[in-house]
């Protein structure tokens, strides 16, 4: 076994930041690019799937089940398998099958499938009366989707986007194992293959901190976009304050 023959030569503590922080930047870059693509494609696709469904604006059962089926395949493959199975496609698009560029392709596909479902589910939560209100007020289909569906579902979509982003950070670590770089790559090559526990610990701390920050930011954005969450919070705390 080749791993066992590698001498466990630990990275000195003072060199860990120089190893881990560039890797964190790579991860953020990878996830950042992927999330931009995911949002740009997932929102229209989610809105389309929602409105092709029975009762939607462009009801079309055949098209709905076709798209829905494709999305489900994207959702059901474990990421590692999805990544491996589309290597030729990835190479066709990016000209390479390693590095950040190569990781972005499978991550975007998995992310789009995930986010399409999230958007669809969020739109389902919008009261159907609002679409009727928009129609009765003279809205065009695009205006209906923008104002009565997406805008009303925004807090829920942002909540889902947070979950999605965290999942992509996770996927970026898996992509790291095939040489995509980033925190996952460092964790696997130093922490796992060389038994460098210090590096392992550092990557864990960084990943936990990153995920926690994303969650915090997401929660804050959800609150900012929900009018009743904003006004209820201070009122509640005032009441608590007066009780003390």
């Amino acid at each position, binding site marked *: 076994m080749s791993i066992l023959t590698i001498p466990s030569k630990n990275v000195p503590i003072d060199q860990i930041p120089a190893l881990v922080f560039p890797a964190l930047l790579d991860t953020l870059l990878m996830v950042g690019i992927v999330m931009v693509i995911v949002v740009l494609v997932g929102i229209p696709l989610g809105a389309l799937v929602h409105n092709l469904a029975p009762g939607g604006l462009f009801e079309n059962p055949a098209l709905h089940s076709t798209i829905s089926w494709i999305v489900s395949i994207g959702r059901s493959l474990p990421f590692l398998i999805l990544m491996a199975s589309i290597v030729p496609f990835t190479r066709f698009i990016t000209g390479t099958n390693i590095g950040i560029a190569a990781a972005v392709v499978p991550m975007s596909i998995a992310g789009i499938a995930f986010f399409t479902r999230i958007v669809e589910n969020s739109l389902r939560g919008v009261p159907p009366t609002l679409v009727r*209100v928009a129609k009765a*007020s*003279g*809205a065009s289909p695009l205006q209906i989707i923008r104002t009565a569906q997406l*805008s009303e579902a925004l807090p829920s979509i942002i909540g889902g986007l947070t979950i999605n982003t965290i999942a992509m950070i996770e996927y970026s670590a898996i992509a790291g194992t095939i040489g995509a770089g980033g925190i996952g790559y460092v964790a696997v090559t130093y922490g796992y293959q060389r038994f460098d526990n210090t590096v392992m610990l550092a990557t864990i701390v960084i990943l936990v901190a990153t995920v926690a920050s994303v969650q915090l930011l997401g929660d804050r954005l959800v609150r900012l976009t929900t*009018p009743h969450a904003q*006004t209820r919070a201070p009122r509640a705390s005032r009441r608590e304050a007066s009780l003390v």
Partner: protein
Amino acid sequence: MISLEQLTKVYGHGEQRTVVLDRLDFSVDAGEIFAVVGPSGAGKSTLAQCVNLLERPTSGSVLVNGENLSRLTEKQLRVARRRIGTIFQSDGLYSRRTAAQNVALPLEYLGVTAAETRARTAELLDRVGLATKAGHYPHQLSGGQRQRVGIARALALRPSVLLSDEATSGLDPDSTRSIVALLKELRDDLGLSILFITHEMDTVLQVADSVARLDHGRIVESGRIVELLRDPASGLGRALRPARSHERAAADATEWFVSYTSATVPADWLTRLADRLGVTVSLLGASIETVDGATVGHASIGVVGADHEHLIAAARSLGLDARPAQAEQAAQAEILERVA
């Protein structure tokens, strides 16, 4: 003005085929408030949705100001719907928009300039008495206030027709009264035709000029409120009369139910009736009011020892209809069951 001609709506096919609206014919004139009542599932909401073509009628036509909406394409409908304001049951406000932004929606869809939108929105909110609440979100408003925002929004494009599906359901009596007063005021000022759908009979009495009762997709009775109230045989007229409890008659007296059937009932009919019959007549309970300037009313009286035929004839000569109270109570109970 709204006219329906043979309006029919059928849902489903084959086994599941249900005729929800069955060849409806009626019209609502400019400046008229027309109420539609009926039990749950009668097809009231379906009717409202067919009038602004949110649902396509299966057959028949909907004419608004003479234009046949049922023939229009979706695009043409968007234009035609500007003439129809719709007030929704659950107010239908966008939760992430302030009152002013909600009122501005139809203007935004139409592409009106920001400055014009601001001016019109302010004017509309002022019109419904919410000038100070422009920046409030729906959750910061009461049910009645939210409904007012919905009314302001329905008026944004200066429609000539207003559709209201259960606009006052779930509101307390005071809010209902003020919404009703607002609608009447709007009708007077703007000459709107208002189709007012409700299941609350006392609201009908407050707001409408005419009323139709829908049951199983058919209009089973309709007419002007005053005429229905004066027609002792009318089920709707009965349902419109608030059934109040009254005193019981003395043991030796029989109880009669008397209702106004003409516009010229003398105010002292009770003493006149007693004089004419030469017997004692006691008043057990009564409700006399003016609806649209016309007096309508009904009373329960106790009569000792009068001949039935004589009593009925004497009452008729005074412009009243008299019938034994027991028969009336049974009829009232039956009709209330059918309407609400």
